[in-house]
Structures are given as structure tokens and as C-alpha cells.
């Protein structure tokens, strides 16, 4: 993956510069995030603990959804069924946990996570077996999973186990650190870091950047894609569960998460062509988008302009990015 790993001799400047160069996009996003936080504090001097805690819980579902989308986009696919999978897993969890003991709730969470892997594997297997483009298969499957969600429960309802709510709501140690942020970082790190560092991660990026080259170097494309979708299913389920945890009910109708996850992934520096990017960038992008939305509320802007702003930012950032890319290519 990294050119640095191939060469045996590395100068000090290489060690320092290359990670920065490789992560320019994410670093720029973090800079934007810092600017936005300062701006928020300026326009809303009372912004503090409550704001940060609210931010933590409100980004959780979309952050997991963005990670889910990032995994499959890196592998050169796209999953348009994430919103539906979230709705399905969220209603199943909320319906089963209602009025049950904590121990049963844990079992439900584990079971639902396994179900998410099965759902993702199904999506992936269909993509590989039918050879129909990813976008078409997952689009059609979004109807299937959304229909299943409505079969489980036709109206919002159910409940989340108290421990699940406690897991994500409130501060962790220091009052400034939302539990939700810890949960997000820990879970994503536990799942993603071993994956990205291992063989599978390598084949994931290989398949995404050049399918033919990956095939010729002995990577099983079908298996890699199915595993990528399985991982996406797992993260989408985590997103669904955090939806249940943050609203304490299950809603069978998919939210806007599918398309917003695509937007967050691209803003987070993952190329839709595949093979480039990580899961950290999309998470930062989700935080940035949420802060912008909050700021517009503080500024008393009509909330509908927030939607316009989201679109303009999405387009603007990408136009900016591609202008830089085009310039670099000309040099």
C-alpha cells in the first residue's frame, strides 16, 4: 500500500512528510473542523458541555453509516441499502428489547449484529454472483430490506434496553468527552484497524483500485467483495443500533442516511472510483456537517437553508478538490 514500506532506506523527511502528504485531505478537514468549533464558540458563547454532548449523540448513527459506506466504496462498490438495513436492524432490536431484561438485551444486540453480517453478505453475494453493477443490486435490495423492516413493525415503537441508552448517552469520565464519541472510536478502531492492517485490507484496496491487476496478482475478487459487503452490513447494523439507542425506539422507515453516507464518504476523502481513503476522514466529515447544521440553527437561519448549504458545501468542496487534482495533473 505505502510506497515507503517497499524501500528499505527512508530519510527523516520521508518519514515526516509522507504521512502528511498522504493525509492532506483529512488534515484539511480537521483544520476546517477546528475553525468551525471556534466560529461556533464565537457566535454562541454559551456553546459548551451540552453542545458537545448533543453533538456526540447526534452524529453517532450517520458516523457509523459513513464508515459502513467507506468500506464498500474503498473496495470499488457502493451500497445504496445502508439506510434500509439501519431501519431493519433498528426495528428488530427495539421490538425484541422492549420490556426485557438487560441480559436478553445483550443477546439481542449480538444477534442483530450477526444478522447485519448476514444481510451484508447477502448483498455482496448477489453483487458477485449476478455480476449486476453494485449500484443496481443494492438499490433493489434497499426495497427488500425496507420492506422487511415494515413487516417487523408497521409503525415506530419498541424500546431500547436502559444499558444501551447508558452506553451512548452522557459523559465519559471528563464531562467534555461524550460516551458516544468513545463508543464510536473504540468500535471502529477494534474492527477497522486489524482489517486495514491485514491481508484482507490489502486486497480490499487492491480490488478497489484495479480489479484486473488485483485478480492477476492472485486476489480473490469475489471473496474480497463479499467480505467488504459483510463488513458494511456490520457497520450499518451498528448505525441502526445507535439509532435505536439515541431515539430509544425503532423506526421502520429509512432515514436519509444512505445518500448522506455517500456524501460524507466523498467529503471524507474516499474516492468513489475505489481504492483510496480510509474510515477516519468520513467520520470527521460527519462531524463537520453536523456542526454546520448546528451553527445555522444558532444563527437563526431557516433550517431549510441548512439543506441547501449541505449541498453547496458538498459540491464546492469536491469542485475545489478536483481543481487541485487537475492542476497537479497538468504540472
Amino acid at each position, binding site marked *: 500500500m505505502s510506497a515507503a514500506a517497499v524501500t528499505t532506506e527512508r530519510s527523516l523527511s520521508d518519514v515526516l512528510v509522507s504521512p502528511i502528504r498522504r493525509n492532506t485531505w483529512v488534515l484539511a478537514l480537521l483544520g476546517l473542523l477546528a475553525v468551525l468549533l471556534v466560529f461556533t464558540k464565537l457566535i454562541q458563547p454559551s456553546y459548551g458541555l451540552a453542545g458537545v454532548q448533543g453533538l456526540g449523540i447526534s452524529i453517532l448513527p450517520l458516523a457509523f453509516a459513513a464508515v459502513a459506506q467507506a468500506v464498500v466504496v474503498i473496495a470499488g462498490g457502493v451500497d445504496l441499502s445502508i439506510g434500509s438495513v439501519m431501519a431493519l436492524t433498528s426495528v428488530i432490536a427495539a421490538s425484541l428489547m422492549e420490556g426485557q431484561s438487560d441480559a436478553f438485551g445483550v443477546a439481542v444486540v449480538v444477534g442483530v449484529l450477526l444478522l447485519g453480517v448476514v444481510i451484508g453478505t447477502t448483498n455482496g453475494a448477489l453483487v458477485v454472483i449476478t455480476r449486476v453493477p453494485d449500484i443496481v*443490486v443494492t438499490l*433493489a435490495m434497499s426495497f*427488500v430490506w425496507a420492506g422487511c423492516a415494515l413487516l417487523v413493525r408497521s409503525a415506530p415503537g419498541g424500546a431500547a434496553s436502559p444499558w444501551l441508552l447508558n452506553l451512548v448517552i452522557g459523559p465519559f469520565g471528563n464531562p467534555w468527552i461524550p460516551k458516544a464519541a468513545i463508543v464510536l472510536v473504540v468500535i471502529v478502531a477494534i474492527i477497522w484497524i486489524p482489517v486495514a492492517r491485514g491481508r484482507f485490507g490489502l486486497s480490499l484496496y487492491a480490488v478497489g483500485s484495479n480489479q484486473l491487476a488485483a485478480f492477476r496478482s492472485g486476489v480473490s475478487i469475489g471473496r474480497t467483495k463479499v467480505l467488504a459487503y459483510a463488513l458494511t452490513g456490520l457497520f450499518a447494523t451498528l448505525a441502526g443500533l445507535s439509532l435505536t439507542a439515541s431515539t430509544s425506539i425503532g423506526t421502520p422507515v429509512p432515514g436519509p442516511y444512505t445518500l448522506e453516507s455517500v456524501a460524507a464518504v466523498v467529503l471524507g476523502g474516499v474516492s468513489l472510483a475505489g481504492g483510496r481513503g480510509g474510515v477516519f476522514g468520513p467520520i470527521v466529515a460527519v462531524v463537520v456537517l453536523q456542526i454546520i447544521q448546528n451553527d445555522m440553527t444558532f444563527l437563526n437561519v431557516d433550517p431549510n437553508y441548512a439543506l*441547501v*448549504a449541505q*449541498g453547496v458545501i458538498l459540491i464546492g468542496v469536491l469542485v475545489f478538490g*478536483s481543481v487541485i487534482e487537475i492542476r497537479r495533473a497538468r504540472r
Partner: protein
Amino acid sequence: MSASVRTNQWLSVVGWRGLFRDRPIIPLIGLLGVLIVAIELADPGIVGPEWAGVIVRASVPLAILGGCQTLAMLTGGIDLSVAAVASMSGFVTATLLHSPGGVAQGIIVVLVVAAVAGLLNGIGIGVFRVHPLIMTLGMSFVVLGLANVWQLQNVQTGAGVPDSLRWIGSTTFADVVPYNLLVFIPLTALILVGLRRTGYGRLLYAIGDNPVAARLSGTRAWQVLIVLYVISAVMAAIAGLLISGLTNTASVSLVDASLLPSVAAAVIGGTSILGGRGGFGGTIVGALILTVLTALLTVLGLPEPSRQVLFGAIIVVVAAAYTRVTAET
């Protein structure tokens, strides 16, 4: 997965597969026939001229939206802003009902607004090379947001779907032939002739089939793409007018539910999402298939959730069968 194996398979049955590949519309019409027979078996006596009229009337807007996707997909793109543009068009026309210029003014305004949205899409995709999925997605946020803002400013003035739109969108001649064909037939003729007989149509295929070859042979892709997305947005606006006339509602989210079916119609109709292959004829049949399928699932008395599940499953099966038959991925 091996490319060589696939080629051999393809060559051995090049005869009938070639036929389906070149004339994808034949198996599709067969499928449509099967669905019609199925619906007649499920509810004897339902199929008749009036039923056909209802089906055609419902298919026309979907076929136009599918046409937007078809044109975009021929170049290897996609247009996710069609639903927002179409909803905006129906809604804004309704709010302009009492303006001095009346309905005509409203329609002109929305067509111009749609064209601007399409122009921006085209500039983003053609000049700045933003991925079409993201560019049109961002545009759909912008259009929907602005439509919402417009809605809040017009709460007092009231809105109603103009009679003329209701007439063309929902009424039928002699209870059989829907009047929305008055819009659809000229539009279809224009697209079919445009794709087959004009240089511009060939450029769409060329860009999607092999962008490098197209560029080397002197195609200015950005110009083609800008025109394409303007056409797509204007068509979406026209579809939105027909849908608001058909349903007699004006809402900023009216067409949202048709976004994914519009992609499905183009895909089922044999247009490759990878570009360079397909056509509008197949999309029309695809839209008819989706409408008849929905009608069939309703006739079978299935509840809405089961219908959704089957709808999605059938799209996968049809797309898979289609890919197998034509040996294209």
C-alpha cells in the same frame, strides 16, 4: 470471473445472445406479456382497454424520469437530482397559479429553474469532473432546500394544481387514451431520433463507451455533458408537471418515491449503468414493466411491505437474468 472464459461462452452462443444484445426490447416485451397474463389470471377480466389506459397513464411520468437516467447512464453517469427537480417543478407551478402570467408563466419559470440546475450539474460533472452521483446528489439537496424555503414563503398565498395540468396529467380520451401521451409521444420521438440519427446522440454513446477514444477523436466531453444534464433536468421538470397533474397534489417531496424506480426502469430496460449501451425504447418498456408489476402485486392483495420486498427481489432477478442473457457486466 475470468475474462477469457466469458468471451468463449459468449462466442459459442453469439447467435441468439447477439439478437438479445442488439434488440433487448424483445425479451423485455415478452416479460411484460407474461406479467399481463399473470395479472389477468390473478383477477380475470381486469385487463382491458381502460386498464391499459390507466397503466400507460401511470407509466408515462416514470418513463420520462427513466429517460433522464437513460441519457445520463449512456455517458456512464447518473442523475439523482431528477426527483427533487420534478417535485420542485410541480410545486412551484402550483404556487404560481395566481401570478399575473398564470399557469404558462409558472411552467416557463420552472423549466428555466430546472435548466439552471441542470446547467450547474453539467458544469460540475463536465468541467470540474465531479462524480455524477455526488454532483447530482448535492444538487438535489440544494433544489429541495430551496423548494422548502419557497414553500415557507408561500404558505399564505395558497397553492393548487392548475386545471390544465390536471387535464393533461390525469384525464383520458374516450376513457382509454391518456392525454399525457400528447407530451410523451413528441418527447419520445425527439429522444429516439436524437439518439439514433444525430451526431449528438452518437457522442453520448461514444463518451460512455470509451471516454479516452472519444477524447482522442476530438469530442469535447464537457460540452456534451452540459447539454445532457440540462436536457435531463428539463425532462424531469416536465415529468414533475405531469405527476402533479396526475396525483392532483403539489408537494416538495412528491416525486421522491420515484427516484429509485426511475433508475430501475432504465436498468431493466437494458441500459448499462457503466455507459455506452442501451436506449430509450427499453426504458419505456422497463417503466411499463414496473407499473404492471406494482399493479400485479396490488391485485394479489399483498400488503405494502411484502410488495416492496418482492419489487426489489424481482428487480434483482430481472437485472441478473438480463446480464446473463446479454453477457455484459
